C-alpha cells in the first residue's frame, strides 16, 4: 500500500542523506522523494511516497522521528490531501501528427513546453496517477524521455503540518 508522508526537517547539510540512508538500511521502499525549503528558510519540507503495510508505515514514522534534524512527520490520510507531480515528457512527433498531439494535450490540461523538428515536449502537472494516464495515451507516439519531480503534497483546508 502506498503512503504519502510529509517530513519537516532542519535545513542543514546531510539531512537528505540521513533520511535516504534510513530508508535503505531499514528496507523501506521509496517511490518518490521531493524536497524544498519552506516559508521559514531554516526549515525544509519533504514529501515521501513509500510502499508498505501498516507495520512498515508505523516503523517509518517512528524511525524518522528519531533522527535529530527531523522536526515533524505526518502521514496523510487518503482523500485528505492534494498532491501534485510535475512531469516533462518528450515524445516523437512529426509535423503531420502535431495538431493531434496538441489536441490531446489540451484535453488532458497539459502544456506544450517545447516543439522541435521531430519531437514535442509535454509539461504536465497533476497527481501521479493522472500523469500515468497521460503517459499511456502518449505511448503510441513513441516516448523518448520522461522526467518527473516526485510527488509533493499538502493537506486540504486549514490543516497544516505543524497542527
Amino acid at each position, binding site marked *: 500500500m502506498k503512503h504519502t508522508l510529509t517530513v519537516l526537517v532542519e535545513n542543514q547539510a546531510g539531512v537528505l542523506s540521513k533520511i535516504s540512508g534510513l530508508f535503505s538500511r531499514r528496507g523501506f521502499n521509496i517511490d518518490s522523494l521531493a524536497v524544498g525549503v519552506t516559508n521559514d528558510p531554516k526549515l525544509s519540507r519533504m514529501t515521501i511516497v513509500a510502499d508498505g503495510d501498516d507495520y512498515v508505515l508505523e516503523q517509518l514514522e*517512528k524511525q524518522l522521528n*528519531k533522527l535529530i534534524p527531523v522536526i515533524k512527520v505526518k502521514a496523510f490520510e487518503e482523500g485528505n490531501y492534494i498532491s501534485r507531480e510535475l512531469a516533462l515528457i518528450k515524445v516523437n512527433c512529426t509535423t503531420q501528427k502535431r495538431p493531434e498531439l496538441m489536441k490531446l494535450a489540451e484535453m488532458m490540461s497539459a502544456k506544450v513546453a517545447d516543439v522541435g523538428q521531430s519531437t514535442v515536449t509535454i509539461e504536465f502537472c497533476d497527481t501521479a496517477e493522472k500523469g500515468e494516464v497521460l503517459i499511456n495515451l502518449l505511448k503510441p507516439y513513441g516516448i523518448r524521455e520522461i522526467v518527473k519531480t516526485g510527488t509533493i503534497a499538502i493537506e486540504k483546508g486549514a490543516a497544516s503540518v505543524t497542527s
Partner: protein
Amino acid sequence: MINGAEIMVKCLENEGVSVIFGYPGAAICPFYDALLDSDIRHVLVRQEQNAVHAASGYARSIGKPGVCVATSGPGATNMITGIATAYTDSIPIIAITGQVRSDLLGRDVFQEADITGACEPFVKHSYLVKDTADLPRVFKEAFHIATTGRPGPVLIDVPIDIQQNKLEEFVYPEKANIPGYKPNVKGHAVQIKRAAQLIRESSRPIIVAGGGVLTSGVKLKLVDFAVTTGIPVVSTMMGIGVMPSEHRLYLGMLGSHGKGVANRAIHESDLLIVCGARLGDRAVAAPDQVSERSKIIHIDIDPAEIGKNIKTTVPIVGDMRDIMERLPKEVGDYHVPKMWDETVERWKTELFKIPQTFEGYVEPRGFVAALSKMLPSKAILVADVGQNQIWCANNFRIKEGRFLTTGGMGTMGYSIPAAIGAKFARPTREVVVVCGDGSFQMGMNELGTIAQNHMNIKIVIMRNVRLGMVRELQKNLYKGRYSATMLDDEAPDFQKIAEAYHIPSAFASTNEEAEKIAAEMLKSDSSFMLVCNVSPDTPSI
C-alpha cells in the same frame, strides 16, 4: 583569544568530564596540545576501537557519558566498531575525531575519511563542525543528546583548521535547544492506568527487565515492586544485575542462550511486563507465539522499539524512572495468586544446576559461580563475547555490582578495554574480566594500557583453544564440520604475554586449583591473569 581546540577542552570541562580515552594523530594534535593545560586525564589506549569500548565501560559503571578521541582517517574508522557496539547497547558516548582541513574536505587528502557518513547508521547523532564558533553549541547538544532519552553515541568530527581558528571568548551555552529532539520521559497517565488494570487482572504475570532499568537507575524500585506484588523477574543479557541472582523472585536470563526456567516462565505466563528491553531475536525467538499466548505491557523510552519486535497490548513510552514511580501506586495491593508463587519457588530451585565436569579441565560454569561468590558485593564483572559470555551471564551470582558485556552487537575484544574504562570510573571496586582465548587475542593489546597505568584488573582466560561458540554452532547446525574454529595449541603462551607486561599469572586445570588461585589473586591489588584450561566439549549452556 581562544582557539577551537582550547574551546573543545573547555566544553569537556564544563560537562564535568575528568577522564577521556584516546589515541592521537596529526589531525587531532591541536586538541591534544590544549589538553596538556587541562586537569582532564587522558588514557592512551593501544587501538582506537578500544578507546570507545573503554568509554563504554566507563559510562556504564558511573552513569555519565564516556568520552573518546581519535584522529582522522584510520583513527576514526577504527572507532566504528566501538561506536556501533555502544549504539546497539544504548551507551552514552561522545566520540571526538580530528578531520583534515575543512577547505580540503572531499579531495581524498592524506588520512581523510568521511567518518560522519560512515557512522551514520551507528550514531544517535553526528556533527561535522564547519565553524569554530559552533563548537560550544555542538558540544552542549552532543552531551544532551547522548545522555537523554534512549542514550547513545554522538560523534563530533572537527577539522584541524576549526581546532586552530580563534574566537574572542568562550561562552558555554546553558541549555541545548534542538527543535527536533524532545524525548518523552513521562509515561501517559491513561496507559499507566491500563497497564495497572492488566496487572491486577493477571494470574501469572512476569517482569522482563532489560538494560533500560539499569540505565534509568531504578533497579531497587523494580525489586521493591516485584517483592510487593510477588511478580517474578527474568532479565535480558543487558538487564543482568537488575536483581541479585540469588533473589527468590529472579529466574535468570531469558533467550536462546538463557536459562530454561526463564524461558519456561515466559511460556507459562499470562502477562509480560517488558521494562526497558527491546526483545531482540536472541531474547525472544518467536515473538508472535508469545504475544498470542500472553498479554504484553511494553515500557520503553524509545517509541520505535514498541511494536517493532513484539506485538503489544499496552505500550507505555517513557523513562523507567517515571514509570516505576507511578505504576506501582496504580497497581495498589495486588499480589500474584499462591499457585504462581509456588511455581516460581519451584523454578528457583532448578535455576542453578551443577554442571557436568571434564577430567583435567576447569569447568567454567562452576568456576564462574565460585568466583562470583568470592567477589565483593559491588564487584564489576566484564565478560567478552562467545561461550565465556554465556557461562558468565548464566552463572555469575551478581549482588549489588555490575555485569558488563555487549549484548546487541556481540563485539569480540570488548572485555579488556571495557574493564579499563570501568576501573577508571570505579577505582575502588574489584574489576574482573572473563574472556576466551579467542576474544583475549582481540583485545590483548590493551594489556599495555593496564601496565602503563598500573591498574588492578583481574583477567580470567577460559582457554579451550577453540572459537568455542562458533564451533558449537558448527557442531549443532553444520554436522560437526568444523571450519576455521581451531586456535593454536602451542601459541601464544598466555603467561609469557602476561610476563611481557609485568602482570603476574597462573595456570589452572582443575576447579580446585582455579578457585585457590582466584582467592589469592583477589587479595592482591595489582593486575593478575588466570589462564583456565577448559575442555573444548564444554557446552555454552
